[in-house]
């Protein structure tokens, strides 16, 4: 089971109950909204299916997974990425977390500091002048940044 947070609920039950209980037990996930959860479930099912299809061939699995991931990224809006990351982190779903984090890294790679702050809802906690100093010291890294 890939959703490690959910798996914990089943560890306490003994073997008899697991098969019958698995399909009917209700597990509360208060911190995950339905939309990202649906995407994560689809991702998980696809991942397991591709793995089963290409049991011996790791390279094929990687290639197919990459193709699926490219398709998925086209459908997901950048803002949704943050919700997907939060959900994947809460569910402790490592593969999805890595994938969405890589996707968000590509999305912010060329962006300015202001864009990044707005995107993640962050605020600057630097003192007056500290940020200017950093901009001066690393001026080369501010060249060629995308317009907001």
């Amino acid at each position: 089971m890939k959703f490690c947070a959910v798996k914990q609920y089943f560890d306490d039950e003994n073997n008899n109950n697991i098969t019958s209980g698995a399909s009917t037990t209700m597990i509360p996930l208060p911190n995950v909204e339905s939309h990202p959860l649906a995407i994560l479930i689809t991702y998980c099912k696809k991942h397991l299916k591709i793995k089963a299809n290409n049991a011996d061939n790791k390279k094929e699995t990687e290639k197919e997974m990459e193709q699926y991931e490219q398709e998925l990224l086209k459908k997901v809006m950048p803002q949704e990425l943050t919700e997907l990351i939060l959900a994947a982190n809460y569910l402790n779903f490592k593969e999805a977390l890595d994938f969405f984090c890589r996707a968000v890294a590509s999305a912010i790679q060329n962006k300015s500091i202001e864009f990044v702050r707005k995107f993640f809802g962050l605020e600057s906690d630097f003192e007056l002048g500290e940020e200017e100093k950093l901009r001066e010291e690393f001026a080369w890294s501010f060249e060629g940044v995308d317009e907001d």
Partner: protein
Amino acid sequence: MDQGRRPNKFIANRNNKIYMDLKDIIREHALPFLPAKSLFRFKGVCRDWKLQISTPFFAHNQSNNFHRVMGFFCQSQSKPPSFISLDPNSCGIPDPSLQFLPEPVDIRTSSNGLLCCQGRTGEQPYYICNPATKQWKKLPKPTANHGSNPALVLIFEPSLLNFIAEYKLICAFPSADFDNAYEFEIYSSSEGSWTISREMFFGGAMFMPCSGVHVNGIVYWLSKMGGGGIVFFDLTMERTQRLYSSQNGCLGVMDGKLTVTSAYGQALTVNVLSNSYTNTMGMNSRVKAWDRKLHVNLSDRSELGPLPSYTHSAHDQGAVLFASGDVIVFRCDRALHTYDMKTKEFGRLSCEIDNDVRFFGYVNSLVEI
């Protein structure tokens, strides 16, 4: 806890990792996938990020997660080096002409974010540096005389377990004691010293500087004379031998295997060494060592102009300057073109280069020396 952001209904327990704030998750899981240029810029986002990006542990993480060659160093005879980025917005370095080093240098070889350069005067010492962080280290003097244009290969493979960057530098140089022979001297960063290998190559070949690559513990060079082809040195077995190859071109590494890439006769061709054990079989073994990986027709690409015709000239690498990972860089006249093997797209780099240019791939990594 929400600090006035968009409202979210988090039921949280500060001590439990699964309830981390978004910014902490991004800081730990997304930042290591970024190139060095973006990371230096994002030090200005907030204090937490600045602190995280500056730690040695983060540098180790990033060098393990970020492997893409996104830029190239090039240098012509005795001129200062310059830097070309595949994507200038996201890959960059503070000082392309490497003036942070104590003297003017010639770049000799590169590997995963580290450069090996050689000073031009006096004892011509070797330097290992990271051009993104401007850290550098001068290597101790080697035992043997490596000559004026040494055939060097830097081997640095980031690994999860090695927190401190461990690298080796191997030099193939003409033997002073035997004619027509080459010896090998290896520097190991973990031992901090040079060792001359007992193994020597007798075969009348001349190892081409700047042609060497490293794959799975074996270092390969292009060789001129004595039959041409490729010569390799196996670091684990300490063995050297010639490797037969039907094609001349630029050596590279793709999907963990040795490749030879050439551009002539209106086509870009990549051959991959699929069976590296044929060299242990009999002389007349019929086992095919090389497979064709890629063949791209260039004749219908009018924007490229005429390719140089196939020739065993002094520049045995021919038109292809770099071919590893997913990127091939080749030249038509003085212009540089790229081919991305994943997207199958051509591109053009906006710069002109001299005929005798030395070309090195570079990964925008934070690795600490």
